[in-house]
């Protein structure tokens, strides 16, 4: 394990890639790798890129990569796509738009599947971002799946959050709905050359100008493929990036991220244990007794809780 971390720090790409596979195993709660890197990371701002499907997130990242490279930055990217709820397979199709950076030794792109996790990210996303930071990439970008109104996990994980919208997002009523537009530091209206983009831009200004919370949100209009307006976007991102490095902001984000990590990991561990229990004959009997009206739901949950505690105790004994 130490050997692997050492190699990652020294820039060995294969080790980094292997480490990412290790943390991407579904249901894994082994965090030894990240624990090793925890003290030396948490200093580099993570940038989130989210927005509806097809709006241009990957293309935008591709353009930003080029510009960041021109400024001598080494950039890491984690790009997430959904696992099929039916086949459990996935088409990881973000990096196809970033292939011109494939052989750049100062760019590392990793594609991840959600493994059924909702919220826009995957369990491994933050861990892979930390590995990238540990390997010396700065900044680290995380691209979510194409999201709807409600998947805002990215906001808890990243220091700077970009929401990308495009024409066809909806009318003035749509833009007022809660969720996606509450989270960003920057809203990017992409495909600004298309008709409707202007109207969307106005709606977004109306929505974000009206919030009484006093939070200032940048709104930038771009055409990601051609790069039009992206230099202005990058300037704003770099300003936010500099702010994110102040001790106060860094601590705030670090705490938020750590809290989320603990909650997530605890949840994953609980889910696994619960599924094991419910797959067994005792668990199935409990469900049957609920169906027959012999037990109340509360009763079932109490017995499950006992069973899980017993499971934990046995695991502890086995490990001892």
């Amino acid at each position, binding site marked *: 394990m130490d050997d692997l971390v050492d190699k990652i720090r020294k820039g060995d790409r294969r080790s980094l890639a292997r480490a990412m596979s290790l943390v991407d195993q579904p249901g894994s709660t082994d965090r030894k790798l990240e624990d090793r890197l925890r003290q030396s990371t948490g200093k580099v701002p993570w940038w989130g890129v989210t927005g509806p499907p097809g709006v241009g997130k990957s293309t935008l990242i591709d353009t930003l990569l080029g510009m960041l490279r021109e400024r001598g930055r080494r950039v890491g990217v984690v790009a997430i796509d959904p696992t099929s709820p039916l*086949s459990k397979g996935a088409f990881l*199709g973000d990096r196809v738009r970033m292939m011109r950076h494939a*052989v750049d030794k100062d760019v590392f792109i990793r594609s991840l599947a959600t493994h059924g996790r909702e919220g826009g990210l995957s369990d491994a996303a933050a861990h892979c971002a930390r590995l990238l930071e540990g390997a010396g990439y700065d900044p680290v970008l995380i691209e979510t799946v194409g999201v709807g109104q409600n998947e805002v996990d990215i906001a808890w994980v990243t220091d700077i959050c970009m929401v990308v919208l495009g024409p066809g997002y909806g009318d003035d009523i749509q833009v007022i709905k809660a969720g996606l537009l509450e989270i960003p530091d920057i809203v990017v209206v992409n495909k600004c050359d298309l008709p409707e983009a202007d109207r969307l831009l106005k709606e977004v200004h109306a929505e974000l100008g009206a919030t009484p919370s006093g939070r200032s949100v940048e709104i930038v209009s771009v055409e990601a493929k051609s790069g039009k307006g992206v230099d202005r976007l990058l300037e704003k991102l770099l300003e936010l990036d500099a702010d994110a490095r102040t001790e106060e902001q860094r601590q705030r984000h670090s705490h938020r991220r750590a809290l989320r990590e603990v909650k997530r990991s605890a949840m994953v561990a609980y889910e696994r244990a619960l599924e094991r229990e419910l797959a067994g004959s005792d668990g199935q009997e409990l469900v049957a007794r609920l169906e027959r009206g012999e037990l109340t739901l509360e009763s079932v949950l109490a017995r499950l809780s006992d069973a899980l505690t017993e499971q934990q105790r046995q695991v502890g004994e086995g490990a001892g």
Partner: protein
Amino acid sequence: MNTETAKRVLIGKVGLDGHDRGAKFIVRALRDAGYEVIYTGIRRTPEQIVRTAVDEDVDVIGLSLLSGAHNELFARVADLLEEEGAEKIILFGGGTIPQKDLPLLKSLGFRRVFTPGTSMSEILSALEEEIAGDK
């Protein structure tokens, strides 16, 4: 929630041909069969393909080429994989490849080479066999 680690497959198109319908068909079929599939897009260099395969830590590479340059380009991919120490990645090839070239490609490390007319179920079985064989 999924508890099995899915296998990762890279489908790469080397060479200058722009025919990607076949590759995309395979991508869909693999996804539907439970694989995590990364597609490189068309007209990629062997260097781009190998770098992607290593960074994404894939288990399998499926190379597709319809322009006739398979002997050189497939060989280049095989060489680069060896340089990277990534010979464990299962290599499949496909495209308009004449029978007489199959032995050469096999000797370069391609486990299977699929010529036009191969059914998808044949490809999927072959994949399963090779993966199981490596365990």
